[in-house]
C-alpha cells in the first residue's frame, strides 16, 4: 500500500515536469534568438559597441540616444515610417474588410475569387518588389504604357489634344512613396481578408434575420451587426498590420532601394545600414529600442482602445 502511494507521488512529480520538457526546445530558441538579442540590444544602446568588437565596450549613458535624435537621416526614416503606418494601416484595413464583405455576398465562384485575392500573400516580399519595379520601370513599364495607350485612344476620339507625358514613377519621391503603400496593400490585404472572412462567416445568420424583421437596411445591418461582431478580428488585424508596417524592409530592398533620395527609406533599412555598413551597433541599438517603444505603444494603444470599447 505504502509503495503504491509513493509511486503515485512519483508519478505526479514526473507528470509535473513533462510539459516543461516538451516546451524546452521552443523556449530555448525563443530565449536565445529573440529575447536575449532584445535584451542585449537594450544594453548595447548605452555603449559604444561596434559590429566587430566582441570584448568590452564603454558605457556611454544616453550619448547614443542624443546622437540618434540629432541624426537627420534617422528622423527622416522615422517620419517616413510613421507616415507609412498612418496611411497604410487604415487603407489596408478597409481594403481587407471590403474584400471580405464582398466575398460574403451570394455570388458565384467565391473560391476562385478568394484564391486570387489571397495569392500575392504567397509571393516573397523580394519578388513583390521586383514585380512592381518592373511594372513601373521607366517610361516603358506596363504602368506608363497603359496610360499612354489610354491617352492615345482619347486623342483619337478627340477628347484630348495635349501630348502624352509619361509619369516619372519611381524616380519621383512622392510617387515612389505612394507606390510602396500600394505594393504593401496589394501583397498583404489578402491575408487579413481571410481573417475578416472567417469572422464574418461566424456571425449567426439569425441576427441578420431578426434585423430584417425589424426593417434594417443594408447599411444598418453592417453598422449595428457586422461591425460590432468583428471586434476581436478588428483588434487582431490592427495589431498585426501595425507590426507589419513598422518592420517593412525586404519589399523596399528590391522595389525602390529606399530611394529616390531616401524618400522611401524606412527605419529598419536605416538601422541595417548603421549596424552592418557603418558597424555602429551601439547607435543602431538605440534606434532599435526607440522603434520597439513606438511599436509596443502603438499596439498597446490599439489594444487599450478595443478594451475600452468593450466596457461601454
Amino acid at each position, binding site marked *: 500500500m505504502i509503495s503504491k502511494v509513493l509511486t503515485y507521488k512519483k508519478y505526479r512529480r514526473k507528470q*509535473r515536469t513533462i510539459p516543461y520538457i*516538451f*516546451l524546452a*526546445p*521552443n*523556449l530555448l*530558441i525563443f530565449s*536565445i*534568438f529573440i*529575447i*536575449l538579442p*532584445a535584451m542585449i*540590444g537594450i544594453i*548595447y544602446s548605452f555603449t559604444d559597441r561596434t559590429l566587430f568588437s566582441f570584448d568590452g565596450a564603454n558605457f556611454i549613458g544616453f550619448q547614443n540616444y542624443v546622437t540618434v535624435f540629432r541624426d537627420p537621416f534617422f528622423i527622416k526614416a522615422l517620419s517616413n515610417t510613421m507616415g507609412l503606418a498612418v496611411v497604410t494601416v487604415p487603407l489596408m484595413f478597409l481594403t481587407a474588410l471590403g474584400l471580405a464583405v*464582398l*466575398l460574403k*455576398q451570394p*455570388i*458565384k*465562384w467565391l473560391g476562385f*475569387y*478568394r*484564391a*486570387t*485575392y*489571397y*495569392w*500575392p500573400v504567397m509571393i*516573397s516580399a*523580394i*519578388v513583390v518588389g*521586383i*514585380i*512592381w*519595379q*518592373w*511594372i513601373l*520601370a521607366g*517610361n*516603358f513599364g*506596363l504602368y506608363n*504604357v497603359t496610360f499612354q495607350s489610354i491617352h492615345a485612344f482619347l486623342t483619337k476620339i478627340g477628347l484630348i489634344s495635349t501630348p502624352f507625358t509619361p509619369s516619372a514613377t519611381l524616380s519621383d519621391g512622392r510617387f515612389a512613396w505612394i507606390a510602396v503603400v500600394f505594393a504593401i496593400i496589394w501583397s498583404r490585404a489578402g*491575408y487579413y481578408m*481571410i*481573417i475578416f472572412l472567417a*469572422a464574418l462567416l461566424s456571425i449567426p445568420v439569425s441576427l441578420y434575420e431578426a434585423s430584417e424583421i425589424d426593417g434594417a437596411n443594408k447599411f444598418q445591418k453592417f453598422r449595428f451587426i457586422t461591425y460590432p461582431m468583428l471586434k476581436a478580428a478588428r483588434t487582431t488585424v490592427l495589431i498585426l498590420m501595425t*507590426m507589419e508596417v*513598422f*518592420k517593412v*524592409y*525586404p519589399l523596399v*530592398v*528590391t522595389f525602390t*532601394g529606399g530611394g529616390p533620395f531616401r524618400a522611401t527609406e524606412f*527605419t*529598419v533599412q536605416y538601422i*541595417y545600414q548603421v*549596424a552592418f555598413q557603418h558597424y555602429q551597433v551601439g547607435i*543602431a541599438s538605440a534606434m532599435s529600442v526607440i522603434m520597439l517603444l513606438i*511599436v509596443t505603444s502603438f499596439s498597446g494603444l490599439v489594444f487599450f482602445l478595443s478594451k475600452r470599447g468593450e466596457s461601454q
Partner: protein
Amino acid sequence: MISKRYVIRVQITASLIIFIFLIPVLYTIVSSFKSLSELFSTSPTFFPKEWTLNNFIHVLSTGNYLQYIGNSLVVATVSTFIAIVINTMSGYALAKFKFKGATVIMIVILSTIMLPLEIFMAPIFKVIAFFGMYDSLWAIIIPPAATPTGIFLMRQYLLTIPDDIIDSARIDGASEWQIFTRIIVPNAKPAIATLAIFSFMWRWNDYIWPLISIFSPKKQTLQLAIANLTGEYGTDYTSALAISVFSMIPMLLMFVTFQRSFVQGTVESGMKG
C-alpha cells in the same frame, strides 16, 4: 430580398478586382519569356511577340542559381521538419497539461510576436556569431523554426483531441513520449500539414535571417540572390524576372494543391492566436 441586379453588380466588381491581383504577376511571368530586345523595347506588348527561354537559360548558366535554389530547398525543408517537431511538442504541452507558469509561458510566447527581429538585427548577429553559427545554414534553419504562430496553431488543434484517449494510454502504461508519437502526432495530421505548408513558405520567402547570417556567396539563399540583382545601378531584368518566376513556382504549386490549408491556417493562427 436580394435583387438580381445587385448580385450581378457584385459579381462584376469581384471579377474586376481579380485583374488588380493577377495582372502584375502575369505580366512578370510572360515578360520573363521575352527576348532582350523586347524587354527593353520602347513600345512593349503585354505578351511576347516571340516566346523564348533565353532568360531562363542565361540565368541558370551564368550565376550559381541552381546552388541558391538548392540552399533554399535544404533550409526550407530541414527548418520545416524541426518546426513541426518542436511546435507540436509545445502545442501539446500547452493544450493538454496544467502546470505552474503556463500563463507566464504563454505571455513569453506572445511577446515574441511583439519583438520583431527586423528591429534587432545587430544583436541577433552578435548572438549568432557568439554561438559560431555565422555564415552557416544552421543559423537560418534553427532560430526561425520556433514560431509563436506554429505553437498556437498546434495548441488550438490539439485542444480538440479528447483527454480520454491520452488518459487511457497512460493507464495502459504508455510513456509520455510514446503518447506523443503514437497518439498526438497521428491525430494532429491536418494541423501538422498546415504548419508544414506555412513553415515552408516562410522559410522559402525569408530574407531577414539569411541577410543577417549568411556571408559566403555559395551559401546564399534564392531570395538573397534575387535581392542582389537590384542595386544602385539599376536592375538586371533579364535575370531578375526569370529568377523571380523560379521563386514563385514552388509557391504556386503548393498554393494550387493546398489552398484549403492556407485559408484554414490563416484563420486558426490569426484568429485564435
